[in-house]
């Protein structure tokens, strides 16, 4: 097992948790990415959308900051010094995947952050079911793609 990657993952996870706690402590909001960004793009701008825009800018500047330091703060992407990894497939596959992620998180009222982090931390039954469902479906999908269709690659 790669302990340095695990430790790094733990540090990253704690930062994500601190972000969720910070947003709740200051603005009283759940740090759900699909909710924050989804409501920003699908509804007309209201007086309350500036913090959402700022959140997205912060979200993008996190990896950018690491890239500017040459990944020197340490990250665990595939290549040393690489922060943002390569997409798993071409434009066609990503169009399908993106649509599923958009429709799915829209219908299911949340993604890995809203249900998987904030919801589990609140012990919400809906989030527990949603998280178990999307994890199981993702694991089955990867199994089928890699070991059934991909012939064990």
């Amino acid at each position, binding site marked *: 097992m790669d302990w340095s990657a695990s430790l790094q993952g733990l540090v*990253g996870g704690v930062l994500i948790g601190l972000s969720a706690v910070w947003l*709740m402590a200051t603005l009283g909001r759940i740090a759900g990415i699909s909710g924050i960004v989804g409501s920003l793009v699908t509804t007309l701008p209201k007086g309350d959308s500036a913090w959402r825009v*700022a959140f997205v800018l912060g979200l993008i500047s996190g990896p950018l*900051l690491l890239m500017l330091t040459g990944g020197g703060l340490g990250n665990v992407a595939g290549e040393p010094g690489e922060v943002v990894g390569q997409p798993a497939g071409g434009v066609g596959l990503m169009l399908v995947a*993106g649509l599923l992620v958009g429709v*799915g998180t829209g219908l299911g009222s949340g993604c890995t952050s809203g249900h998987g982090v904030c919801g589990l931390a609140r012990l919400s039954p809906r989030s527990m079911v949603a998280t178990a469902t999307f994890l199981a479906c993702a694991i089955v*999908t990867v199994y089928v793609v890699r070991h059934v269709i991909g012939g064990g690659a």
Partner: protein
Amino acid sequence: MKTVMGYIAGLLFGLGLALAGMTDPARVLGFLDLFGAWDPTLMFVLGGAVVTTFIGYRVVFRRERPMLGETFQLPTRQDLDGRLIGGAALFGIGWGLSGYCPGPAIASIAGLTAPLFAMLVAMVAGWFLARAFPARG
């Protein structure tokens, strides 16, 4: 002031994702590949995030209200319906195909490629599409 707080939250989130390797779809898919060369990193990411939030929320909720808001805006629904479960299932399939959930996909804009751009456009289209579904399924 709310804008500054939002930016700080986003920055912490983006830094956390990048440090944890979540902005690399290969690492995420490695975690989801339970029956292949399994990579446990994401378990530590989720674990660290949930435990931190669990403890932090308990401290935060001792106050009557957030520092810069009227109330804590929390989901109140408890019921399990087809919309929640069906939505989560579709999302899981999309996550398994791409290795991207919404956070890392948006955070990776700094290294934008044509496939990632396609993913983001389709994701936004999906959010609009989801709003067209009847409110309760």
